[in-house]
């Protein structure tokens, strides 16, 4: 029994320390609150960028053709090279880039943004966090 109580005490101490770390460490707080990652951008912030941003649609061709953010360019891993060229030609250093796909759990936008940062030197590529359809033209 004594060791059970001691174990519980040690677990509780760790929990308290973990709680304190969430209070005082922004990085720990970000994890628990599922806060925005460095490579993400909210719909509101993306809207604020307006025409200054280059929008990248990471979905399939069919989804793109049925509706997309006005002025967005398509880029996905099915036709990477063919679609990359217009993106590179449009992008200028300093231009923010927002990549979106279907939903919060969609991986395609994350993969495309990673490759744009690594392979094209577009450090400003961020993933949209939220629903892109809020940015559709009426």
């Amino acid at each position, binding site marked *: 029994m004594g060791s059970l109580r001691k174990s519980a005490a040690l677990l509780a101490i760790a929990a308290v320390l973990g709680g304190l770390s969430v209070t005082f460490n922004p990085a720990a707080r970000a994890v628990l609150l599922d806060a925005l990652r460095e490579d993400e951008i909210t719909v509101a912030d993306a809207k604020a960028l307006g025409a200054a941003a280059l929008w990248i649609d990471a979905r399939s061709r069919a989804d793109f053709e049925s509706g997309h953010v006005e002025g967005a360019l398509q880029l996905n891993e099915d036709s990477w090279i063919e679609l990359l060229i217009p993106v590179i030609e449009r992008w200028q250093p300093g231009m923010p880039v927002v990549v979106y796909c279907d939903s919060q759990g969609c991986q395609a936008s994350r993969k495309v943004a990673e490759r744009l940062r690594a392979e*094209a030197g577009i450090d400003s590529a961020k993933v949209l966090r939220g629903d892109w359809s809020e940015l559709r033209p009426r």
Partner: protein
Amino acid sequence: MLSRSLLAVVLSVALASACTAELKWEATEVILDLDSSQAGGEAVFRFVNEGTGPVKIARIAPGCGCTVPVLDKTEFAPGETGTLSARFTTGERRGAYHVPIVVVFDDDTTAELSLVAQIRELVKYFPLNLVWTNGETRASKNVELHWNTTDKVEVTSIRSVNPAFKAELAPDHDWNGALVRISPSGDDVKGVSVVVITTVQGPNRISRTYTLVARAI
């Protein structure tokens, strides 16, 4: 008294659920281990209808255009077994991909399957992009390609989209791979190009391309 009534309700609900049609999956997650010399792979999900009624699959929604579901039939009688195949295309993908596949039945219930494709890249190259800064001499820069396989990998073409940047295979290297040299055509070159390196890999000579961006500011 109240707890007995509650138990009765819970049991009734449980029994009622047991009387509906239900697919039992052999596995709801399939891992595909691929490498870049493979065009794709197929994940097979086996199931049996363990319910007392027929099951009708209304549609299947994969979470990625890279995965195409294949089903021979959509209706399964009680006790009948079936197979749902999910064909994954490697395309130009690399790394790990988790594709959720939602199976929607005609009673609007769903089952969620998971295809995990792990693609190992057989060609590593660096740097991944090249920059000539403002004022920097437009001297040639090299990109190293390293083969991460004992299978045959061959560079079949190198193309620079912008003719102001010349891209070619250079002969001098002492590793298992290749060397690509990118040269701006003059000291006044400003602009950007995508350099496309095409390879064929493996015994099936699957074509795989690698891109890098060359930019002169």
